[in-house]
């Protein structure tokens, strides 16, 4: 980047970040002549040049041809099929982080579907509030959860296993926090998203207060899509609704997986179609997530 196109302070920021880089390109120039690089080049030049050839050769994903060991492939193939009989795959399975939430009830299946691979939307009560995650098995055979746990700021009479700890600090501006329980209750939560099951589509999902009968997502390309809305199963014991929709990455944001958020706004509607609330992603100038809410933060420093 030309230094003239950046302010001095942006350059300072870049300099701070540059120091974090564990390696520089200049240090790697000779790597292309390493045995590994030469071997890789030879393997690639022998690989099929398009999907049709790759399928014919028995390896749709060419990377398998280059690197995967036969033992790994055998292990993957021996794994049981995911989601057979809609058995719920635990949100917490394999979560070894000592700070991980502790489940206080069984996982509850909210929805399931198939977009590339089978997925399940699972909700669980925990000591940190509701956990909501999209569970699927990756192409490598690993169980993956995209989602999270935390305080729920939705309207309704929610137990602590759903609501979470009201003394948890929530961000109300870039520099301020406040007890989450002191903040206004909402009709709808901004969604989580996962493009794990299908590389061409992203599954967007979230929770909403009871009374929300319709959810529209406004995408970054200006299009609007209608989400599926379901009531929480009785087993969850919470007056909540959940929503989800699969968004085509091409429609949503031209194939950019993570860096460009495909959802600009979520709109909660009642059964008559009236707008209950519109919510935007936090930290886009308005940390409350309310498009009509407080103004952007004041200058600091």
């Amino acid at each position, binding site marked *: 980047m030309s230094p003239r196109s950046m302010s001095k302070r942006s350059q300072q*920021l870049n*300099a701070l*970040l540059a120091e974090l880089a564990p390696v520089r390109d200049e240090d790697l120039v000779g790597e292309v002549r390493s045995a590994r690089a030469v071997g890789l*080049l030879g393997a690639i030049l022998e690989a099929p040049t398009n*999907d049709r050839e790759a399928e014919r050769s028995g390896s749709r994903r*060419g990377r398998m041809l280059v*690197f995967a060991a036969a033992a790994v492939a055998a292990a993957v193939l021996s794994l049981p099929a995911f989601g057979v009989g809609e058995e719920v795959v635990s949100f917490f399975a394999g979560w070894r982080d000592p700070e991980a939430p502790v489940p206080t009830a069984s996982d509850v299946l909210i929805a399931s579907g198939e977009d590339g691979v089978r997925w399940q939307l699972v909700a669980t009560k925990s000591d940190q509030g509701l956990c909501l995650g999209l569970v699927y098995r990756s192409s490598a055979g690993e169980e*993956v959860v995209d989602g*999270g746990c935390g305080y729920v700021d939705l309207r309704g009479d929610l137990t602590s296993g759903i609501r979470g700890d009201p003394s948890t600090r929530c*961000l109300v501006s870039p520099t301020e926090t406040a007890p989450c329980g002191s903040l206004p209750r909402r009709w709808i939560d901004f969604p989580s998203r996962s493009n794990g099951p299908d590389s061409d589509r992203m599954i967007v999902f979230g929770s909403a207060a009871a009374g929300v009968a319709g959810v529209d997502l406004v995408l970054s390309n200006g299009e609007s899509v209608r989400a599926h809305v379901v009531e929480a199963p009785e087993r969850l014991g919470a007056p909540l609704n959940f929503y989800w929709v699969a968004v085509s990455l091409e429609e949503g944001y031209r194939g950019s997986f993570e860096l460009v958020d495909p959802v600009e706004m979520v709109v909660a509607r009642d059964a008559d179609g009236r707008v209950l609330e519109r919510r935007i992603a936090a930290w886009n100038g308005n940390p409350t997530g309310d498009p009509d809410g407080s103004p952007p933060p004041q200058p600091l420093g």
Partner: protein
Amino acid sequence: MSSLPDLADAAARRERFQALYEENYHRVLGYAQRRVARDDASDVVAETFLVAWRRLDQVPEGDAARLWLYGAARRVLWNQQRAVRRRDRLSRRLRAEGVTRPDEDPSGSSLTPVAVAFGSLRRGDRELLSLVAWEGLDPGEIAEVLGCSRNAARIRLHRARRRFACELTRVGASLKRSSIAGHVSEVYE
């Protein structure tokens, strides 16, 4: 049986790919090694160039090829990392993912405040800032990598810088306050 023109095309294709590979291998390797452990980085490089081989017709000529490869590597990396990622979007745990190589500092205990601030950003923000600071891209080039408009890239970069500055302020007790405060005051102007 292949005809002579087919063989000539195949040879030309191999030659072009080899040139692409030799010119950009270190860049793609650097991109990957700055974001994941070395072993994983090797996989990212392998798959990125395999994608390039199979889609060579789509790879632009010249310097634009580098941006195309970054875009491909980013997708490969994302596909790889999603298998091990479990997010807790509300607890805002300070994480160093993408800042240090996991095999070097699994505990994250020796992270600098800058690294902590950077690691606490959303993945998308980290990537935007990294593309500038580590790969040296400008907003137009970032737009190419992300497949968005130049204006969108500029806006998102601006927001990412602002959020980074906020995080720096939040963790910045031992940082150079003058420069950080100066940055923050600028980005909100």
